[in-house]
């Protein structure tokens, strides 16, 4: 009798989605997301926009940190570079938004070559510090290049119009974010199951073994950096449009930490984990506020007037709890639940 989750062919092993029900549920989710802008108010919609933009950025970081095992503490540097590239091309030089998005991907990708180069020699904490330094350097460069970036004064960015379609309204902009996030999700899932993705994972698991297997560490590490920076840059452009004003101050270092927290909570190395982690981290403070507001109006007031301190505490608490009790993140928890459901009453 067949029990458990068997993969009997190589095709099954690299399938984009494991079973038809997952396709069905994914379609239902997509449909719900398409309907959402017509149902949600502006406040709820702002959460959806932030989730979709953050998912894009987290998926970008997941390629580098999750798939390839290279820790980056300075991904906000690519985010801000992407936002500025878009703002300069579209708001300053009045180029079409599509060119702006292309630039938002390409400029951070080029910058990543500079950061990626040391990664050929550095690992772990040393690489993390290098990327951290990059995020500070890029801020200084932006502030000093006033003739191009407007320095600390920042640049105003309008919602785009692409191929005659205006994304001015919140609903329309949500669709744009949804489109980019969906494409990014498909791209990263496909990268993961390709030869390139398997090379990334091999480097993460054991780079010496990967080299013995014939994987060019230099080329693949750089490729991971470039791909990750390209996607993060796109997220930066969307974030800049969401903010409507691109300045160094709008991209605090804390965003890098938040992105890492998303990957840890979601489950490192998993695209689904990046999505689940984003939803949890973005909605956690609001959910906590709603729960507490049921108990007392005073607690609700504490959450609105001391919100940011409480949010930081909640993030910290959640990360500690996940690292202690579920180090494989939400994806790990989901796999455990699914296995228990499928195999019950047997145990593995």
């Amino acid at each position: 009798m067949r029990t458990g989750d068997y993969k009997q062919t190589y095709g099954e092993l690299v399938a984009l989605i494991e079973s038809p029900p997952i396709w069905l549920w994914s379609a239902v989710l997509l449909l719900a997301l398409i309907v959402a802008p017509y149902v949600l108010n502006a406040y709820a919609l702002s959460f959806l926009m932030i989730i979709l933009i953050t998912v894009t950025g987290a998926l970008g970081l997941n390629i580098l940190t999750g798939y390839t095992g290279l820790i980056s503490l300075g991904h906000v540097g690519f985010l801000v570079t992407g936002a500025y590239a878009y703002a300069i091309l579209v708001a300053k030089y009045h180029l079409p938004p599509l060119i702006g998005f292309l630039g938002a991907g390409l400029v951070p990708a080029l910058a990543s070559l500079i950061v990626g180069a040391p990664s050929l020699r550095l690992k772990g904490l040393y690489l993390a510090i290098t990327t951290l330094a990059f995020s500070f350097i890029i801020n200084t460069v932006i502030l000093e290049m006033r003739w191009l970036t407007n320095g600390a004064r920042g640049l105003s960015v309008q919602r785009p119009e692409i191929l005659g379609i205006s994304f001015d309204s919140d609903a329309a902009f949500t669709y744009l974010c949804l489109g980019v996030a969906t494409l990014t999700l498909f791209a990263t899932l496909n990268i993961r199951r390709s030869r390139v993705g398997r090379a990334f994972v091999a480097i993460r698991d054991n780079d010496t073994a990967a080299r013995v297997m014939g994987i060019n560490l230099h080329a693949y590490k750089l490729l991971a950096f470039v791909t990750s920076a390209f996607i993060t840059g796109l997220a930066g452009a969307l974030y800049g449009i969401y903010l409507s004003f691109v300045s160094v101050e709008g991209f605090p270092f804390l965003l890098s930490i938040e992105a890492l927290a998303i990957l840890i909570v979601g489950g490192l190395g998993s695209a689904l984990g990046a999505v689940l982690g984003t939803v949890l981290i973005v909605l956690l403070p609001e959910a906590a506020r709603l729960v507490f507001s049921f108990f007392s109006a005073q607690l609700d007031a504490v959450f609105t007037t001391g919100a940011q301190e409480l949010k930081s505490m909640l993030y910290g608490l959640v990360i500690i709890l996940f690292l202690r009790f579920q180090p494989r993140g939400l994806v790990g928890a989901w796999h455990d639940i699914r296995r228990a459901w499928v195999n019950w009453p047997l145990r593995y």
Partner: protein
Amino acid sequence: MRNHLTTASILLATTLLAGGGAFAAEPGITDTEILIGDVEPLTGPPALLGVAASIGHKIAIAEANNAGGINGRKIKYVLEDDGYVTARTIQGVKKVIEVDKVFAMLGMSGSGQSIAVMPVLEKAGIPTVIDVAPVKLLWEPPRKNVFVVGQSYEEGIIHLVNYLAEKNPGKKWGLITQDDDYGITVRDGFDSVVKSKKLKVVYSGNYKKGQQDFSSDMLQLKDSGAEVFLAGGIIAENIAMMKELEKLNVKPVTGIFWPGRIEPVLKLMGPAGDGIFAVDYVEPFAGEAGKAFLEKARPLVSEAEFKGINRYTMSGYAAAKVLIAAIERCGKQPTWACTISELEKTKNVETGVMAPISFGPGIRFSNQKLQITQADTATLSFKPVK
């Protein structure tokens, strides 16, 4: 039959009109309440200004409520924390407009945050009076529903440098600024006076936001022989600079800007801060108007809130007074259109904490009159300079 139809039509039309009237009621207004929203940095270092501004709003609201509210309706204040993070300011503004459904907005966090929420406010069309960070992008171009109480940083710095230049002719000047929007504005204002007054600048420094150690900067300032010094820091930076100058045993004539003109700064500076000049558009607490404001505020806020009062409380109070007065002039059924129209008609409104406030057709910036004050460490206060 025709008569019956006519009567029915009239009844239907009356019902629809009455119903339509009810539907047309603006958000944030019930029979007993009017909701006013605000988003400020209430946590983290910028909370020093956000909390103080919100206390100013609370004082004005409590004062109005004690006098019976706005035409019988009590004002309810809905306050949200953004932690000085732009994305959260946008979300906060959307929350108070869409979820809490406030009638009008006040305050609005820092300069970058205010600029970022402009499209949201403009699209919503909600009457808004901004008072925390007056920067030109908020009133140029003028937006129909957004009014700004205060004075521009550029004008402030020009006023201060002109004053110090007149009092110290022929002296050598030094300047240090922060590497952000605020610093650029201070520098631009300074540069414009340098050209016109032909000032001799011997030191011009720039520091990274968050810098704590100013030993090398102040040593360079000392070596340059600067006799008049414009400290372009905000709070902690200005304190560190003055302490460093004290260690180096030099005491140039020093000018600071209003974001740093708060009384606790003098306590932390100690004797090093004595005699420094500051520019501002709100009254100093050491003056008659300031004392009267504190007397008025004491019974209206808690002890903890009273301790949190600073100059931003005054600017917040003035903005709230102007907004409340405009809503009040709209009578029993205030609307956004009427409130905006009445805000536009604001002419020489006395708030007691700054010069009279005026707006006008196409004028959304109150352009407050400036004054110079001087620090007195003995009383830990800034006193008006005659």
